């Protein structure tokens, strides 16, 4: 079972991780984008951290929705509406929940990723955050079907996300700003796939910490 406090802890940890990786993500974005992804994510999650205390004792659905709305109104760029929608949708899928079983956890991520797909319409191989999420979701589903416990299943999912993130390196971008570079986008890791991997990895580490 994942508790409400663990979700809050995840978001707090994520803010820290994104602050630490601000330059790294920005550097990735300067190679094939406009050098702001780390700055964007950091600005957004700083705002999330400011907002969290006021909703931390409501339910998980509301916490995630608030996170999504905060990201939407503070990040801007492509990642703002994409991650904003991710959290809005995951929150909507978990209305009134105070804790999550394995099914809920999968539901949370799947709904979030569905939100990304609906907004950005990425397909596999476009060299976007979706290239990290899609294999991560599949791995999580397979592991759960396999009877793995939450942590083990998430571990497999994070490994898949990492692989998916790395797989973006040889891809030629077809969505977002990197697509303008055509072949020159090849050879660089997608910043959004990287932040998505960090998101999932931080969730795992938060749950492991208990």
């Amino acid at each position: 079972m994942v508790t409400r406090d663990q979700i809050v802890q995840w978001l707090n940890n994520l803010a820290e991780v994104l602050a630490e990786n601000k330059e790294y993500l920005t550097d990735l974005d300067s190679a094939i984008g406009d050098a702001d992804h780390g700055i964007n994510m950091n600005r957004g999650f700083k705002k999330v951290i400011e907002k969290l205390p006021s909703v931390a004792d409501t339910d998980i659905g509301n916490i995630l929705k608030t996170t999504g709305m905060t990201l939407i109104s503070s990040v801007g760029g492509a990642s703002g509406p994409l991650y904003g929608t991710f959290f809005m949708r995951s929150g909507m899928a978990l209305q009134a929940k105070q804790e999550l079983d394995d099914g809920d956890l999968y539901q949370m991520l799947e709904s979030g990723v569905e939100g990304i797909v609906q907004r950005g319409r990425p397909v596999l191989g476009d060299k976007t955050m979706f290239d990290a999420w899609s294999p991560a979701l599949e791995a999580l589903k397979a592991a759960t079907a396999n009877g793995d416990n939450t942590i083990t299943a998430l571990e497999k999912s994070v490994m898949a996300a990492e692989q998916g993130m790395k797989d973006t390196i040889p891809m030629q971008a077809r969505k977002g700003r990197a697509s303008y570079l055509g072949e020159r986008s090849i050879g660089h890791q997608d910043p959004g796939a990287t932040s998505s991997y960090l998101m999932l990895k931080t969730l795992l580490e938060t749950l492991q910490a208990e």
Partner: protein
Amino acid sequence: MKKLINAIDDVVKEQLEGMAVAHPDLIKVHFEPNFVYRADAPVSGKVAVISGGGSGHEPMHGGFVGMGMLDAACPGEVFTSPTPDQMYEAAKMVDGGAGVLYLVKNYTGDVLNFETAAELAFAEGVKVQSILIDDDTAVKDSLYTAGRRGVGTTVLVEKIVGGAAEAKYPLDKLSDLARKANMYGRSIGIALTSCTVPAAGKPTFDLGPNEFEFGIGIHGEPGRERFDMKTADEITEMMAAAIIDDGPYTRTVREWDNDSGEWVEKKLTDDPLKSGDEVIAFVNSMGGTPVSELYAIYRKLAEICKGKGLKIVRNLIGPYITSLDMAGCSITLMKTDAEILKFWDAPVKTPGLRWGV
């Protein structure tokens, strides 16, 4: 990095404060969420024209707010799309009862954020439309990319649509004009240097002392190709060819249906320029290139257009859609007709563009 700025986090805010104190007769600035709006907004019975995008392209968009052009502009962080709450609050502030037209440069971030804003505004009972500007011929196709970027044509569309809005065009007709003007416009840009985003503190890309980038956007992205430095005439020839020899361009855009309250997809194809067309020629500095060099470019461009049977009937030369301190320029050619010319010539009174009043 040397810039006339204070704390990096305050760059956009302080520039807006400067605009507000400099032009109280023309504009007002709202903070949190940030937007620039006409001092006399809302203008009753007039469609409100709103644009926006990342900061760093000044005078666009904030400098184009005022009589005859934009009703509001939403500045994001430097090179980062603004957020839906800015666009939505701006719409509520300037809506004069005849609806709101969002002019959106085609970048994933801008498109996604403006879509959300349009949905929010519609939900509040405001009639809305959102027209995409996508004119950068450096992006070849829309199938394997996010589609052509919105660049120089944006300035021209904002002027023309702003003029027509002032003449009380209703929302549908105004949207048709905006769509047409966008489809009539084509652009290409080059960079002699990178720009430096304040928050990054260093140039976005490196260019050798004898190189230039061809086919850049307006966000310090590297361009389509890198070449050894050439003369102004040669560079102008390459740029003009990119625009004039460009084939038909097809893309699918999403526009809002105010009846069904849903997005509908439209497939649009614009035709190449052809001999006999009358055009507005826009030679733009990316920020670091002085106007004198733009005239060297214009000189050759006029010669090429003449040779190709394109008649330049109006022009605009200067820094209007910039990329911070980048040295370089862009060329936009927009086909015109009587309707476009009429509203291009219409009076405009904004901090960045002013004539006829």
